[in-house]
């Protein structure tokens, strides 16, 4: 329905005053859907170094962290109750005199993080391995924490 506004200019004003707004809402929905598919948008960046991935199966927890350039004996790993504490320091060796740096992107420094696991764990059976700069810790759950299958009669 074409109307004439006060300045004599034909407009579609009465049909649907919210048309422009609806179109914007649709575009925002489309944007969030696309962003949800992108891998990096699903992650909530942690504020403490190192970033860890924790996975579990019925018997164990698996904790992995990327710690390049750190040797196995430079990591301090402790288990206390349900918490796993990882700390250490990354050092970058100095390269001697007369070097001109083109880029410096790698960082050095201390790190310390305590990770709370959701269930009770067996602190006697913790196995930690450091391979190629990736720390993998396998922690067994206590018997009480393992899921029990209930048979339905």
């Amino acid at each position, binding site marked *: 329905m074409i109307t004439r506004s006060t300045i004599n200019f034909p407009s579609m004003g009465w049909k649907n005053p919210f048309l422009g707004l609806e179109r914007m809402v649709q575009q925002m929905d489309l944007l969030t859907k696309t962003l949800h598919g992108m891998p990096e948008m699903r992650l909530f*960046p942690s504020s403490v*170094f190192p970033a860890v*991935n924790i*996975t579990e199966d019925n018997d164990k927890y698996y904790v992995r962290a990327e710690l390049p350039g750190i040797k196995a004996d430079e990591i301090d790993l402790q288990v206390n109750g349900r918490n796993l504490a990882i700390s250490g320091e990354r050092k970058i060796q100095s390269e001697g005199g007369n070097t001109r740096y*083109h*880029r410096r992107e*790698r960082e050095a*420094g201390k790190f310390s993080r305590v990770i709370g696991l959701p269930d009770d764990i067996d602190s006697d059976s913790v196995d930690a391995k450091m391979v*190629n700069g990736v720390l993998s810790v396998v922690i067994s759950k206590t018997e009480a924490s393992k899921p029990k299958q209930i048979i339905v009669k």
Partner: protein
Amino acid sequence: MAESKELQVKEKQELAAPAEQTRSGLIFTPEVDIFETDYEITLLADMPGVAADDVSIDLRDGVLTLSGDVKPWDNSEESDVLVEFEIGKYYRQFTLADVIDQNKIEAKIEDGVIRLTLPKAEKAVPRRIKVSTG
């Protein structure tokens, strides 16, 4: 005594891939330190999860290509509790201004850090030219 600073989490930088891969997966750019002395250029790259067999270094036409494959862990049985970083290959390219003696390139990988030593060719080594008076 100076306290060394605390490390902060840096999100892994994903590469906006110019060419599509044949297999799906993420590609990240590794963090590098590059420095040179009079005789060589050294590159240090952080590539955790990459073993010595999975690194490929290519130098042609003055372009250095560094890539590393990361074996995905086999966690089909595991369910995620907390995921803070993704796993993917590493890839980075550099153009080199200096001429490199290709026969003397050395590469070493240790604890997920690769150290690449590129000796400069004879003609690229800076020489001091003595200026005589008279």
